């Protein structure tokens, strides 16, 4: 870091890093300058002029916008002079000229920078008697975002966000001068995975969300800080509720993780909490029908089963458990069984990953400080959306990007080198010798590399990505960010041993190996590539207990269904993200009916069965989770609640994944997951439910042409199964490949490693594709 500069602000000497903006330097020293357009995560534009301050120059004092002026040594600044005050009053008077002042019906009122700053710095009265400009009151600019152009003060925060941060500039200023408005192109809605952030940063109530519109007043909201468990990024969030109902989620600026941004799924996939279809009472299957029973009866029936020392118990765990929940299941398995236990995670992409002793694991921030980023993974924009934003940010700052394979289409657009089909086959096999690839050698050899490595498809072998890893490990100074995308996977890694994936589940679990199966927060029948196999395995077992928020295709097969409280806002615990950063999950609202937490359920069951339980409370489990760590660095509640640790604590650990090695399965179908799928939670979150309901596939241009697909619809047929889907012809897919979003309804039912017939609608003869 270069020398500091000294400046005098309002007669006080302050110090700042050079190249900082005046507004930021003042802020760091506790001097607040009002602003609308400036946002510390966006490039400055100087649109609003609210941040005018007086600076002494050789020509005397002049007014400058502090958000576009860099600090200088011995600069003398006045942020409170009469001239500044007059300027602020003037700016506000102008801003209010066309502002409708419909605060009484505005969602923003009460937390509105325009209201607040008008109170603090504005003129007492308006002199404007003319007609204000009018626009149609809110227009839908997407399915989930509304725009009231009358309220807009043209700060360009939303447009800059969509251009600079999320890279999907679908909103812009239209017209000029007094007529300027924010808008979309006709029939090209603001469909962005990150659109909710614009609502959050809009300094007025111009952008609102369908989800929160007219739901509450800010002063009635209760709030708490928590962690999103939607994917392995673990973004810091603030939960808002009113009258015991969760109403809103906001992004919190955690510098190391999400920097204030969250994806729209993380933001809106909470509405299911308030759904009437939530499970409220335990269900027991009798004569093929579920009947409601008391939770005590579940405990007594199941405790009889587990008291029998012969009972063989297995666990299939989802990724939305807290670390404490995982520990409770670990304790349970240790108490009841003599032999070593495996834990099956609900993940069809799970493989051993890269955690060996000689491997340095990367932090998210390493993306910014490395020379190049190398990506071989699932589509990160769909699966770990905010990590995708962090990669974009690094690239914007000049870090080079190398992308392997066709999964990361949007990243390949900004990549310096993209290795497509000639290098990585459509089935994600490396078909060339990595060490002979000239372009990557130039960018990475001897350099600092962050490698984001994971499986791109369930059918790919473990071998190819390993080849890439070995090349990087040998030739570069590389750190690895293992890209497991699902929720609290790293929490499971941290707390459980012998972790396996769904492929192992399919191989291992049978009537012989398992008498009692717990399926916790997982719907593998609904959305994994092993759907059919898992369904028949579960059907064949004696006792299956499903713990979840809703009934779903997997729980339908269970003998007992236990309603549980959601990790989002209904319970406390900890979560560990992709860089092994552990942070707090907090509770804000009560959960309905007889719901219990996963850990409560399993602990009560153990007690009921008369087992000696050492971890009877959440605190016990929390302590147990990190018992191998030194006190000072252990992310136990007491430590996490210290103000300095609110952003979480990083303890890198090397997980024990004992998933078996997989070999390539060649298929013409490439299965991935879209951000919005047909999961039970999205289905019951009204504002986004439709976004995940469309059944469609993407067909490469060559296939579309070859089979004369023109009608827009086709039918997939395999054995008894027939599903009609719409299709899109994709320019980015490699030839002869079909992309299937397997988290869309009915599409998961196919076995994509086998032949499937495709009949284009209106075209009679079937074509065989395998």
């Amino acid at each position, binding site marked *: 870091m270069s020398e500091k500069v000294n400046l005098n602000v309002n007669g006080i000497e302050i110090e700042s890093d050079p190249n900082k903006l005046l507004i930021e330097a003042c802020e760091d020293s506790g001097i607040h300058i009002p602003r609308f357009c400036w946002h510390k995560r966006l490039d400055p534009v100087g649109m609003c002029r609210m941040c005018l301050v007086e600076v002494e120059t050789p020509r005397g004092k002049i007014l400058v916008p502090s958000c576009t002026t860099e600090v200088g040594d011995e600069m003398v600044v006045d942020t409170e002079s009469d001239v500044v005050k007059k300027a602020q009053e003037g700016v506000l008077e102008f801003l209010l000229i066309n502002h409708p002042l419909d605060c009484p019906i505005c969602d923003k009122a009460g937390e509105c920078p325009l209201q607040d700053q008008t109170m603090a710095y504005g003129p007492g009265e308006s002199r404007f008697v003319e007609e204000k400009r009018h626009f149609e009151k809110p227009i839908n600019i997407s399915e989930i975002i509304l725009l009231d152009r009358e309220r807009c003060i043209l700060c360009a925060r939303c447009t800059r966000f969509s251009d600079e941060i999320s890279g999907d500039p679908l909103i*812009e200023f239209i*017209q000029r001068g007094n007529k300027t408005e924010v808008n979309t*192109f006709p029939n090209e809605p603001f469909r962005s995975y990150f659109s909710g952030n614009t609502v959050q940063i809009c300094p007025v109530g111009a952008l609102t969300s369908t989800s929160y519109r007219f739901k509450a007043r800010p002063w009635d909201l209760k709030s708490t800080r928590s962690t999103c468990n939607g994917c392995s990024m673990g973004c810091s969030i603030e939960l808002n509720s009113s009258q015991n109902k969760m109403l809103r989620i906001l992004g919190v600026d955690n510098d190391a993780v999400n920097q204030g941004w969250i994806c729209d799924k993380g933001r809106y996939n909470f509405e299911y909490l308030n759904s009437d279809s939530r499970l409220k009472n335990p269900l027991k299957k009798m004569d093929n029908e579920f009947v409601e029973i008391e939770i005590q009866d579940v405990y007594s029936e199941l405790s009889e089963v587990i008291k029998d020392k012969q009972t063989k118990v297995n666990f299939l765990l989802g990724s939305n458990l807290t670390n404490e929940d995982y520990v409770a299941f670990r304790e349970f398995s240790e108490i009841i069984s003599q032999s070593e236990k495996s834990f099956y995670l609900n993940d069809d992409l799970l493989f051993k990953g890269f955690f060996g002793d000689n491997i340095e694991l990367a932090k998210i921030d390493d993306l910014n400080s490395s020379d190049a980023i190398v990506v071989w993974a699932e589509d990160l924009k769909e699966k770990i959306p905010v990590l995708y934003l962090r990669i974009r940010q690094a690239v914007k700052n000049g870090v080079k990007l190398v992308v392997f394979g066709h999964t990361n289409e949007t990243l390949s657009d900004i990549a310096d080198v993209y290795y497509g089909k000639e290098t990585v086959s459509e089935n994600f096999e490396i078909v060339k010798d990595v060490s002979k690839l000239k372009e990557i050698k130039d960018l990475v050899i001897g350099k600092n590399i962050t490698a984001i490595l994971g499986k791109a498809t369930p059918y790919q072998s473990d071998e190819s990505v390993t080849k890439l890893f070995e090349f990087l490990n040998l030739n570069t100074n590389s750190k690895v960010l293992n890209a497991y995308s699902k929720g609290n996977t790293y929490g499971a890694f941290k707390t459980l041993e012998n972790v396996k994936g769904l492929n192992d589940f399919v191989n291992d679990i049978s009537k012989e190996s398992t008498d009692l199966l717990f399926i916790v927060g997982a719907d593998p029948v609904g959305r994994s590539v092993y759907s059919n196999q898992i369904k028949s395995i579960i059907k064949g077992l004696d006792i299956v207990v499903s713990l979840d928020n809703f009934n779903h295709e997997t729980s339908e097969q269970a003998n007992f269904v236990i309603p549980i409280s959601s990790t989002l806002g209904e319970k406390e615990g900890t979560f560990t993200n992709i860089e092994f950063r552990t942070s707090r999950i907090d509770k804000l609202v009560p959960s309905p009916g007889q719901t219990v937490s996963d850990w409560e359920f399993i602990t009560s069951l153990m007690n009921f069965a008369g087992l000696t339980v050492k971890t009877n409370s959440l605190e016990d489990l929390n302590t147990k989770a990190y018992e191998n760590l030194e006190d000072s660095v252990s992310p136990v509640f007491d430590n996490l609640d210290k103000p300095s640790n609110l952003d979480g604590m990083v303890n890198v650990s090397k997980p024990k994944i004992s998933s078996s090695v997989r070999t390539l399965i060649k298929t013409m179908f490439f299965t991935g997951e879209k951000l919005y799928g047909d999961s039970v939670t999205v289905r019951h979150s009204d504002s986004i439910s439709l976004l995940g309901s469309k059944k469609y596939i993407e067909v490469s241009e060559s296939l579309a042409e070859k089979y004369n697909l023109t009608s827009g619809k086709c039918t997939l047929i395999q054995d008894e199964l027939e599903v009609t889907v719409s299709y899109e012809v994709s320019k980015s897919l490699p030839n002869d490949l079909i992309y299937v979003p397997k988290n869309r309804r009915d599409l998961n039912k196919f076995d994509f490693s086998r032949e499937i017939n495709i009949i284009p609608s209106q075209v009679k003869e079937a074509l065989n594709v395998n």
Partner: protein
Amino acid sequence: MSWDDKLLKQAKKIIKLYPQKRSAIGPLLHLAQSKDGYISDDSIAVISELVGITEVQVKSVSTFYSMYKQEPTGKYLLSVCKSISCEINNSSEVINKVQEFTGLNNNETDEEKLFTFEAVECIGACGGAPAVQVNYETVEGVTSENAVNLCKWLKETKPEVVVADEMQENFGGIKSFDWAIQDSSGATSTAPGFQTLKTTKVKK
């Protein structure tokens, strides 16, 4: 794509002149204007595809500048200057008479799509005030009678190419400068006549 091959070829040639594709938006919009007489959403989609930015970003640029018309224009765009020099030299009378003759308010187009009328800010001909433009071909020192005569002539002869020099000779008066260069080329559409855009032609 709604642009024919000829236009697309021209567009690609223009794009090559710039180090970054998106810098070509300005001339490409003029090209779109010469094609349809306004910037259609179809053309915006084509340009967005050609230069690799989103449609709304192109729309943002095209609606910022008043020379990119958002509504179809007539065959002749009549722009009468209303800025200070022309105003002092009686441009309001010119405006009145032209409006009277064409029956058009500001920014209106007649039913036959012959004329679009607009009163505009300074067009850089203060020395020859009051000044008028037909499809951006400037005529200076135009009296209100001559302005009407100019309109009549356009209406009767409907020239394919309008040439500044020719109109100046027949309907103009005092000029800001005498360039002493004869230029017999003029505009062929309501986009300004530029050689690179091929929106200009020599009148035979």
